[in-house]
């Protein structure tokens, strides 16, 4: 997590660092995360330890990577809830290639290609056929799962060979590789958002589409690539998924789409578009990971876990109200 805060946009404004921090979209989530970490360190044995932190992070890698990309879609004023089925399809593709002996490179290529293709379909239907994104991606949620079942006939992929699992279970200098991938992608996205025209245009298009069009921004192209990016990210995530799981089932990724959206919006990216940050998506994903982990450590019975998760999500987003109070109701 410390990696995250150092690589964050060094805010260039000088006045009132606290107030500046509070105006950042991810501020409430970060504050809540910090509070939660403190509480859990005290009450939950085994929470405060490098291996547990590493465990939490590796569990959120798949959600985190996809959230980083979905974050862009949400920033551009759209939404993507097809990622669950997309992950299933990509994992099946990359898993099949891996089992066939494709090695890491082709495994990755297969996942990314399938994902990008699915993402491009989403993007095409939203920007060219002009169907609302929530419907497109809802339809794709059904359709992609259907494709997956049709193509595989319900067989699972098992026994993914070790060389293709590196991204999921390998480690470099003692740090597990999936975490490195997550943070590398975080930094890439942060740079894209800060320094590429596309990154800035995403914010503009999401903030005010009409104005963006009047300013001559290619609003459709900007949004199209955001959807493709989600596909590519799901492709990368799928390789981590098969790496971690070692096999793929036809129901892989079920329900993932809502967790990803939850991560993005809990982190502080506005569902209305135009407001948010890369760090928000990451924070949201980590927050969910910490909550889930904390519940197991505290021995909260399985039946009550959803209730606690939901309540904590509400509490986390309510922190935003506190922030608005502190900032005097503006912003």
């Amino acid at each position: 997590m410390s990696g995250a805060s150092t690589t964050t946009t060094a805010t260039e404004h000088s006045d009132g660092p606290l107030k500046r921090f509070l105006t950042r979209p991810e501020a409430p989530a970060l504050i809540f995360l910090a509070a939660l970490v403190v509480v859990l360190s005290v009450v939950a044995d085994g929470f405060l330890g490098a291996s547990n932190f590493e465990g939490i992070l590796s569990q959120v890698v798949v959600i985190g990577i996809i959230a980083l990309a979905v974050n862009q879609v949400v920033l551009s004023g759209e939404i993507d809830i097809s990622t669950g089925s997309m992950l299933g399809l990509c994992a099946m593709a990359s898993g099949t290639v891996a089992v066939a002996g494709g090695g890491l490179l082709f495994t990755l290529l297969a996942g990314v290609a399938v994902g990008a293709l699915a993402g491009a379909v989403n993007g095409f239907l939203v920007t060219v056929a002009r169907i609302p994104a929530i419907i497109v991606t809802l339809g794709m949620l059904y359709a992609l799962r259907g494709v997956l079942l049709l193509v595989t006939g319900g067989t699972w992929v098992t026994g993914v060979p070790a060389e293709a699992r590196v991204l999921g279970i390998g480690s470099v200098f003692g740090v597990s590789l999936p975490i490195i991938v997550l943070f590398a992608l975080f930094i890439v996205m942060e740079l894209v958002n800060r320094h590429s025209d596309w990154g800035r245009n995403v914010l503009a298009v999401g903030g005010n589409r009409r104005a963006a069009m009047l300013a001559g921004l290619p609003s459709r192209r900007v949004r199209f690539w955001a959807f493709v990016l989600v596909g590519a990210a799901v492709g990368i995530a799928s390789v981590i998924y098969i790496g971690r799981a070692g096999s793929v089932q036809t129901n892989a990724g079920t329900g993932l789409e809502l967790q990803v959206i939850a991560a993005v919006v809990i982190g502080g990216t506005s569902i209305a578009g135009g407001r948010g940050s890369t760090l928000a998506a990451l924070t949201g994903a980590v927050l969910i990971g910490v909550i889930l982990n904390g519940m197991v450590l505290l021995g909260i019975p399985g039946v009550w876990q959803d209730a606690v998760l939901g309540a904590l999500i509400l509490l986390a987003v309510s922190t935003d109200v506190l922030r608005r109070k502190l900032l005097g109701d503006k912003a």
Partner: protein
Amino acid sequence: MSQYTETSRGFLSRIKFSRELVLLGVLIVIVIAMSLLSPVFLTLGNLLNTSRYFVEIGLISLGMTLIIITAGIDLSVGSNMALVSVVVGFSFLGGVPLPLAIVLGVVAGLAAGVFNGLFVTMLDLHPLVVTLGTFAMFRGLAYGFSDADAVSSFPAWFAYFGQAYFGPIPGQLIVFVIAVAVVWLILSRTRFGRYVYAIGHNEEAARFSGVPVERVKLAIYAGTGLLVGLASVIYISRVSTARGDAGLGLELDVIAAVVLGGASIYGGKGTIAGTVLGVLIIATLRNGLLLAGVPSTWQLFLLGVLLLVAVFLNEFFRKEEG
């Protein structure tokens, strides 16, 4: 100005006209296609029987329509259904007389709606965020209260709500028709309905015009909770089991029906007629594909694709670009 009097066919009539007609066309095409695929499909018995499956989704869609018109969303309806099921089932198991248990359940649904509404209005949080939280929370409460158990020892008369027929007509279809009429009247004829559209189009201007924005929103979420309660009772009775996994995935079906019906998630647009058509289209697709013996894996795929095609046609024929 009086020359415009003739053209008036009612509030926002023009936009509604083209939209719903297209949907109706889509529905007719699907009905024809399905009856070609399966001879059983176009029989009164089957059609009436099918209606038993969409009433629950249909009832909740009515509330969801109003929510979506105000540019909101409620992802928690499926989980709320589970909560209501568990409240009904387990309060009954715990000794509460069944009629009272049913009332308790409906009240629980209402309370869940109010809970959503309060978070949305008092804390001014985005409904998607709030209901994403309650989506997990309500389901968790349902599992927690029931300890993941099921109740099915209901007395025979309870089957009435979900399995009774009046002549050839399933009881819940009558409930649905009444609910449609009521919500349609509210939305298209009353002050409240006007406020709903005003908030959806421009919440700030509505507030500046003295529209009690918070109260209207609260009422909408509460009302949706109430409809969920009602739908749950029908559901429990139909499957004669109360359990924490009731309504799993329901929210997506409901939202799909409403948005297919022409409601815009950006707010301001949507009608009850459209939603009912949306519900019918999805129900017809599901039933027809099943009857035609299409394997379930294909059904999933076709449902997704047909949903997209239907919305595409709907958008394609749309006259005005929003």
